[in-house]
């Protein structure tokens, strides 16, 4: 908990208009027989320069939320997106695919989960990075684009970029590749970067380097970062605020300090309890059971109740709303008890 954002956290209402505000986002996936709701009732907003974490176990709908923001689901028969995504005063759900394309990479960039597979193996990396400014007409010539690419490679810490731009992805180590992916995201000079578990595939020391890099770049360019992770340590160290997601729903949302100090939702509490804390010797408590598969998510009631020690009759019937203070909201019938 050493690093904090330069700006202290402020209540939402007093801040300038949000960069991104998501309201009632619902993503359904088509199965053979019906539409399965994979993401439900997701609402949040982000400011410029903010690093927001989206936390949860794998399969809870984090990545799907991110892809919905990029308009990568719903434009085909596989899924359907409902709700509102406002980005810089534009309603993204109303945009055509062509308009969305102009936004992707240019205004909202994506840094993907697995650097090992995110780079196209058959093209030199420089060309892949240069593709972004070239596609979005940030440069007039291919040479300029190449220059931009090399500059970004340099900025993300790749030595000798002019030479290495001509290399193919397999010639880079995992950490280097993630840097390349990040530089690919940044080369369009976006306002929002969605980083989908950017460090899971890397080992711990590299992890820290990459997150430091993201952090620094945020400071330099002022872009916002939506960091998707399952790692609370990462959240604690690098993020401003965090949302905890379970079975497609946001169950708790708070500034990072508040969340860590005062976890309210039983799932959040369990999550924290299952992570070792340096300096504190206590037994780790794994969460009993496992997150439900998409088709097993109960159609009503709280999806966590099966694994929750505090489950009660109400949990069987209704999903609690996300309520609470302006900064700390939680969706649990037990919150009154806690409070």
């Amino acid at each position, binding site marked *: 908990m050493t690093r904090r954002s330069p700006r202290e956290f402020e209540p939402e209402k007093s801040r300038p208009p949000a960069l991104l505000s998501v309201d009632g986002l619902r993503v359904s996936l088509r199965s053979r027989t019906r539409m399965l709701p994979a993401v439900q009732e997701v609402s949040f907003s982000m400011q410029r320069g903010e690093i927001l974490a989206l936390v949860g176990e794998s399969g809870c709908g984090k990545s799907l939320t991110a892809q919905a923001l990029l308009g*990568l689901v719903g434009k085909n028969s596989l899924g359907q997106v409902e709700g509102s995504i406002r980005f810089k005063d534009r309603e993204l759900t109303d945009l055509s695919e062509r308009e969305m394309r102009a*936004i992707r990479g240019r205004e909202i960039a994506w840094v993907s989960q697995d650097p090992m597979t995110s780079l*196209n193996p058959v093209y030199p990396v420089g060309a892949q990075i240069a593709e972004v400014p070239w596609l979005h007409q940030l440069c007039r010539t291919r040479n300029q684009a190449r220059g931009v690419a090399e500059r970004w490679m340099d900025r993300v810490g790749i030595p000798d970029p002019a030479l290495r731009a001509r290399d193919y992805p*397999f010639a880079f180590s995992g950490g280097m590749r993630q840097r390349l*992916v990040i530089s690919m995201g940044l080369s369009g000079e976006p306002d929002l970067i969605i980083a989908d578990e950017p460090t899971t595939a890397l080992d711990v020391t590299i992890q820290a380097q990459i997150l430091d890099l993201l952090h620094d770049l945020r400071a330099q360019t002022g872009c916002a970062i939506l960091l998707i992770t399952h790692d609370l340590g990462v959240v604690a160290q690098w993020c401003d605020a965090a949302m905890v997601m379970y079975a497609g729903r946001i169950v708790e949302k708070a500034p990072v300090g508040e969340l860590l100090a005062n976890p309210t939702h039983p799932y959040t509490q369990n999550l924290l309890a299952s992570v070792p804390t340096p300096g504190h010797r206590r037994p780790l408590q794994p969460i009993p059971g496992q997150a439900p598969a998409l088709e097993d998510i109960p159609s009503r009631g709280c999806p966590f109740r099966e694994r929750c020690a505090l489950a009660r009759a109400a949990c069987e019937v209704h999903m609690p709303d996300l309520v609470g203070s302006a900064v700390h909201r939680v969706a649990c019938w037990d919150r009154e008890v806690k409070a």
Partner: protein
Amino acid sequence: MIFYIARRLLLAIPVLFGISLVAFALVRLVPGDTATVMLGMQYTEARGEQIRAEMGLDQPVPVQYAIWLSRALSGDLGQSGFTGQPVTRALRERLPVTLQLASSAVLFALVMALPLGMMAAVNRGRWPDHLAMTVGVAGLSVPNFWLGILLILLFARTLGWAPSGGFIHLFEDPVGNLRTMILPAFALGLAVAAVLIRTMRASMLDVLGQEYLRMARAKGCGPLRLYGVHAFRNALVPVLTVLGIQVGYLLGGSVVIESVFGLPGIGLLALEAIRNRDYVLLQGVIVFVGTAFLLINLTVDLLYAWVNPQIRYG
């Protein structure tokens, strides 16, 4: 890279040796020999022996093989027993036809298979997919000689759009040449197209699930760029491998197709050699075709390396 090629070439040597051995042995199992066929009804032991002696066929078989092999190594495949023409010259005369036939068939197969396979993968489970898969299975099931006959009936006999056989040299009459080649190339290429459609679809499906493709979409690539640039080249890698394997089919199939369309290529040469019991020629053809097959596969591997940079440097 050079080491890679050298290694591949070295590995090919025992195989080539084996091919020559098989060709030599097989050809000698064929009842009747060049002398008997040349003399036909006028065959007598004495004259047969005389001709065999002239052609060195009176030597013990291992000796014949040794002599033949040593000459073959210096590029001399001997002389056709029947026409007296050097085998290499006969091959050179016929090669352009087969080469043109095979490459036209490949060209046709690629032109047909790559877009269809891609469309099928992109529209998985919908009608373009069903169409492509039906072509993919049906194309493999239609006997190429039957297809050739039907094509002749339809386009040559009924519609009169193409000649029903024979060969016109490319440089003598390019249009005529194209007209003589188009039907056989189609008949020969359909099965290859079928295989390639299936391969292209499968590999495209594989590629479409890859992270770098989602990454490319997230960069703002449109479908053309996405499929045409990012997915295409990756999907091509298995297609090339399969194409290399198909060369064997092409060389074999050209025997039948050349016979149906009366194209004077290597395949027809092989049939003539069998018909005339022309030992030297037949073993020359088999060795040549086997070598060509190996070399083409080597080329395909090199192409493969070109498409897939990891191999290039590895």
